[in-house]
């Protein structure tokens, strides 16, 4: 959705100064060296991830507060979540982080085919995650706990259980949105990988996308215990 322009620097458009005869094709006009360029891009991605942490941080803050205030209702809501699907999804995402890391490694050593294979695997795993999530959402719909007029809860304290599910859908929904963006970014890399654009001295688009992908995984690593594992031993 808001990936900082990792490909920005790649565009070697514009007017290179006449004096700078040796200007590698991947080097944008305003950078002096490839090293400066790739450092800048990596730094930019890290900063962007810092903003993402603050973004999810506000939401998690609100969630934790309400969970402290209404522990029983949140536990009641949480017990309705399918822990097996959540755990499966955790495994799926961790595996996708491994394949993404392998893709970054392949880009660093310049193996075009390997990059493509690992990126495709990453996309497949990411889609599996979204698929399982969609099944979970469907179940929740049938259980009448999706916020809205359809919501029905027959236990004592409906408002707080509803709040749990509101927060559950907001948080996992935003996470899923980040996954979709991540899949889009990975998919956008594949044609360039295929053509063998990335190698030892130019690979920061793959690296930046990888950082983003790992971040989205880590968010899930936090969401899973927060949402699924309340009061379970």
């Amino acid at each position, binding site marked *: 959705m*808001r990936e*900082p*322009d990792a490909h*920005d*620097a790649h*565009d070697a*458009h*514009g*007017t290179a*100064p006449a004096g700078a005869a040796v200007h590698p094709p991947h080097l*944008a*006009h*305003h*950078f*002096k060296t490839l090293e*400066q360029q790739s*450092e*800048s891009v990596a*730094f*930019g991605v890290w*900063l*962007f991830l*810092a*903003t*993402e942490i*603050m*973004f*999810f*941080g*506000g*939401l998690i*803050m*609100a969630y934790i*507060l*309400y969970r402290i*205030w*209404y522990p029983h209702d949140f536990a009641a809501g949480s017990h309705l979540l399918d822990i097996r699907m959540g755990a499966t999804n955790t495994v799926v995402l961790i595996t996708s982080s491994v394949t993404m890391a392998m893709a970054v490694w392949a880009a660093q050593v310049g193996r075009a085919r390997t990059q493509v294979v690992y990126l495709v695997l990453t996309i497949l795993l990411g889609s599996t995650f979204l698929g399982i999530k969609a099944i979970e959402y469907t179940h929740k719909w049938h259980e009448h706990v999706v*916020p*809205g007029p359809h919501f029905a809860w027959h236990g004592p304290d409906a*408002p*707080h259980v*509803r*709040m749990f599910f*509101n*927060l559950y859908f*907001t948080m996992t929904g935003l996470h899923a949105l980040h996954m979709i963006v991540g899949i889009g970014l990975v998919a956008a890399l594949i044609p360039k990988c295929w053509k063998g654009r990335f190698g030892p001295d130019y690979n920061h688009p793959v690296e930046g996308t990888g950082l983003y992908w790992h971040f989205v995984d880590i968010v899930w690593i936090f969401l899973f215990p927060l949402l699924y594992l309340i009061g379970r031993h």
Partner: protein
Amino acid sequence: MNAHAGSHESAAAAGAAPAAGAAPDYLNDGYGIKSWLLTRDHKRIAILYMFSVTFFFFLGGLMAVLIRLELVTPQGDLVQPDMYNRLFTMHGILMIFFFLIPGIPAVLGNFLIPMMIGAKDLAFPRLNLASWYIFSLGGLFTLWSVLHGGVDTGWTFYTPFSTTFSNTYVVTTALGIFIAGFASIFTGLNFIVTIHRMRAPGLTWFRLPLFVWAHYATSIIQVLGTPVIAVTILMVALERVFHIGVFDPAQGGDPILFQHLFWFYSHPAVYIMILPAMGVVSEIVAAFARKRIFGYRFVAYASVGIAVLGFLVWGHHMFTTGQSAYAATIFSVLSMLVAVPSAVKVFNWTATLYKGSISWETPMLYALGFIGLFTIGGLTGVMLATLGIDIHVHDTYFVVAHFHYIMVGGAIMGYLGGLHYWWPKMTGKLYPAFWSKVSALVIFIGFNLTFFPQFILGYLGMPRRYHSYPPEFQVLNVMSSAGATVLGVGYLIPMIYFTWSLRYGRRCAPNPWGAVGLEWQTASPPITQNFAVEPVVTTEAYDYSAERVRAAQEAGRA
């Protein structure tokens, strides 16, 4: 400012003299609407931002005029209460999110930071252009809401009024602010990376101009604070559309949690508005006193100190919400601590004047006005942070007066001072000296007339956001409205002569002030690449020695 020995003289000369065959200046490097809308040149993007924020400033100003007109009489007789509430809400939203926050960073910072650090551009030029488009999109959402009747929640969007009770365009406005927030994040991100990675050889951290330090501190807030308001505003929108109940007491939610999240960003946001203005003032004071800023390191650290402490004081907006007295105490003492770096800055600027060589040019008038008004704004802020005083003056005109001293007396004076200082750099044209001095004076007088009476009104107990008020408050309100008229005229004068100067202004020398900053070591207006030869920095910032100034002036005249 930054000096460069050896090669710098030739660099300066090469930059200063746009010899035949050399690259054209950035204004002439491509013509037509497309060359502007698709530009990746930070200078052109700065100009695009300048047009946008000027538009929003005058729109927000128009609303301020209507507010002041309404308050001339105690009865609410000019507009209906509904309309009045929309006016002050839209005034706040437009001024804060669409003028003050982007104002100095996206216009002056965008234009100057790469030049001040000897770079060709920001690290991510495409992201920079994207930020302007995102900002414009956010602006369009907000304008759409204005045209369809606006929003009446106050710029603070307090729940549950904003989520459950208001029946105005909250969601579209919130979306507009949400979107514009990303423009702010991208600008901040770009600045941080640029300042870290793109400095010219020899330009160490403690040779950076204080303008760059101030923007570095601002960027930290933009990057870390904005996402929090983004998610908060998103929750408000979700609450309105899907009734998620997080802030709705009727569903077990907590409306005060909204205030915590809101002020966690919106208090630091005040520093997004004022820190860049402080950076501008440091540049101007050094250039027109021809002296290195007194206590340079302290001023630099103070910027970062303000940014960091700024994240820890949000609770001082909530002393009367019934938060625990201990929490209130902690927020109060932390707020006091923020005042120290601010005071250090004021003292250091004042000390810089001592034995300076002070010229009374227009930018200097604005900068000195800034110091005075900021001092008053800051000291009244200290009074507000004092718990015992705040229970009486919270949510009264005292607060209104205080933050206008910081934002109008501080941030806008800084912005205008900066525009006057760098206008020749940006356009290559001079504005009329006489009229610009008149404008500085009129704005200063009009400002004090408008906002000083509001301190008294506040202590007398007039609550803010009042459409009608008891008759004993009328005289002070009339004074304030009269002052606002003067202030309004004051803002129109620069608008007129700046526009006039674009066509009729005298062409200026590359360095009309004899300033030594790196941005003055190249042509005015600069070439697209900023410097023909990459500068090398060998001395401290603000190196106003007699030889350097003479050299700068000679190079400037060439």
